[in-house]
């Protein structure tokens, strides 16, 4: 482990189900206190990674550490889970209990001192906005309310690490906003948050660092700034033939967007050179503007690229 405390670390963590590789070899390190976004399309291995980290599934290869406890040491890992909160993608709670009873049951499962249960439950209910329906049976809850309850369950006992697997899948825009607020509050408290999502805007708004996974591999990891620094400009030019395009290609990766040509990976000081090259190649330049890349663009461009 490095000098700074690390909440999660994995080394070539892999999971295969027969011939299907769910996770091909995940290597990453998440510093304590980070809000970490784990982004990827459906089937990329995000939920598998979370299940491995929680000991719900056994790795087929590699190793991982959660709050310092290795996955291979089941007793140590079990003890470490005291400080871990988890909202599963498939969130289901005993529908014959009330929300308050579900939360109390989880207080007991965590091993919290009975004296703090009431306060913990009350806090959790208030944070996720279920205080008024706390004594209703979960069976009568909407999906969104059940997901809010799940988030409340994950927050019990002031965990050091919270893993949220698609935490807003059943929520309306207000609910999504609330979840973002909860995540920010967790960050202020110093809690590490591992956020599994395919919703880029969600990740973009709350995460310090992001890993983009596809086909069971991390294809890029870094801070949002690092991921999004790749500069790009859009150029509207006419008369670009094959030779002209070749000249443009020398400045970066190009992509056609109707009348516009996007040039990726070009440093700002080279933009005038690009314009001159187009003109010299016989092109007529009508407009050049910086292209603000969103995480979504970056995500799509990374997924399009064949990666090893």
């Amino acid at each position, binding site marked *: 482990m490095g000098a700074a405390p690390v909440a999660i670390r994995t080394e070539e963590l892999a999971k295969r189900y027969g011939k299907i590789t769910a996770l091909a070899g995940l290597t990453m390190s998440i510093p304590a206190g980070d809000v970490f976004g784990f982004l990827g399309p459906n089937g990329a291995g995000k939920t598998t990674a979370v*299940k491995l980290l*929680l*000991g*719900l*599934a*056994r790795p087929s290869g590699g190793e991982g550490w959660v709050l310092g406890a290795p996955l291979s040491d*089941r007793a140590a890992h*079990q*003890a*470490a*889970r*005291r400080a*871990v909160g*988890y909202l*599963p993608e*498939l*969130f*289901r*709670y*005993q529908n*014959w*209990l009330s929300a308050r009873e579900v939360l109390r*049951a*989880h207080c*007991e*499962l*965590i*091993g919290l001192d009975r004296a703090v249960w009431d306060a913990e439950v009350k806090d959790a209910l208030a944070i996720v906005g279920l205080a008024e329906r706390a004594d209703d049976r979960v069976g009568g809850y909407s999906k969104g309310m059940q997901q809010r309850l*799940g988030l409340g*369950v994950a927050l019990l006992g002031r965990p050091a690490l919270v893993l949220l697997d698609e935490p807003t899948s059943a929520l309306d825009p207000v609910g999504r906003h609330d979840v973002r607020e909860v995540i920010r509050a967790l960050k202020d408290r110093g809690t590490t948050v591992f956020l599994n999502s395919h919703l880029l805007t969600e990740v973009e708004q709350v995460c310090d660092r992001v890993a983009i996974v596809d086909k069971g591999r991390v294809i890029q990891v870094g801070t949002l700034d690092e991921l999004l620094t790749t500069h790009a400009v859009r150029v509207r030019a006419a008369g670009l033939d094959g030779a002209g395009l070749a000249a443009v290609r020398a400045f970066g990766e190009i992509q056609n967007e109707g009348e516009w040509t996007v040039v990726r990976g070009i440093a700002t000081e080279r933009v005038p050179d690009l314009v001159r090259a187009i003109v010299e190649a016989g092109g007529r330049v009508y407009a050049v503007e910086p292209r603000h890349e969103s995480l979504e663009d970056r995500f799509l461009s990374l997924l399009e690229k064949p990666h090893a």
Partner: protein
Amino acid sequence: MIARLVLREAARRRLLLALLVLTLIVIALTGWGFSRIPTITQRGVPLPDLQVKLLASQFLIVTMFMFSFVLAMAAVFIASPQISGDVESGTALAILSRPIGRAEFVVGKWIGLAALVAIYAGVAAAIELGVVNAVVGYVPPEPAQFIAYIIAEGLVIMTFALLLSTRLSGMVGGVIALVLFGIGWIGGIVGGIGAAFDNAGITHVGTATKLILPTDGLWRGAVYALEPQALVATGVQAGPAAAANPFYASAAAPLSFELYVVGWVALVLALAVYSFNAREP
């Protein structure tokens, strides 16, 4: 914790209540049936007391046989979706991500189910025996032993259904457990027939089924506890052929069999833990 959740679920879903209400209705009906026995007359003369009690003992054995079947079905229906249901619904994800081991989870389920089986079987059988005593004044020779055997029978089939539940869906596990229960019962009869005809091969089949799923052996122990001495004496006179009669036992279950059952339950429970350990919810 897990055990208490099982009990709370049974209470909340009014499962225990429904079972007890239905059972009370059946007990009331059989109580009425028992109350008719002393009114039977032979050529205008009521049956002598001894015969009334003998008849009552026979009816009680048949009634309790039905009860043991209902108990087995109820135990299977409650136990077989216990773990598979949690895994399929996703409830298990939230629980198992807590600092709780798989063994704790499975054993907790078992303790909760065992308490349910014991409460239901104990209360229902005790009431039935009480009603029979009140109506015809008949008390079987070993009522406490009978209740213990019938509870043990419920525990055995429940443990087996719980083992299946670690791997199979509730419906599949439930059907398999019930079919095996039936085979065990038939196996007991087959073994009896083997004994009657002095056929070692057939007897071994009976013994093997009794060891694989010891429910029928426990049922025989329960029957023996219900039999008045006079009846046992008649059975002994009838020779080994009587062993094929599922409503009859010529001897108490040996201590070795009782110990075997304890070991069997422990082993199957350990298998359930082992099996669930390797399962990924």
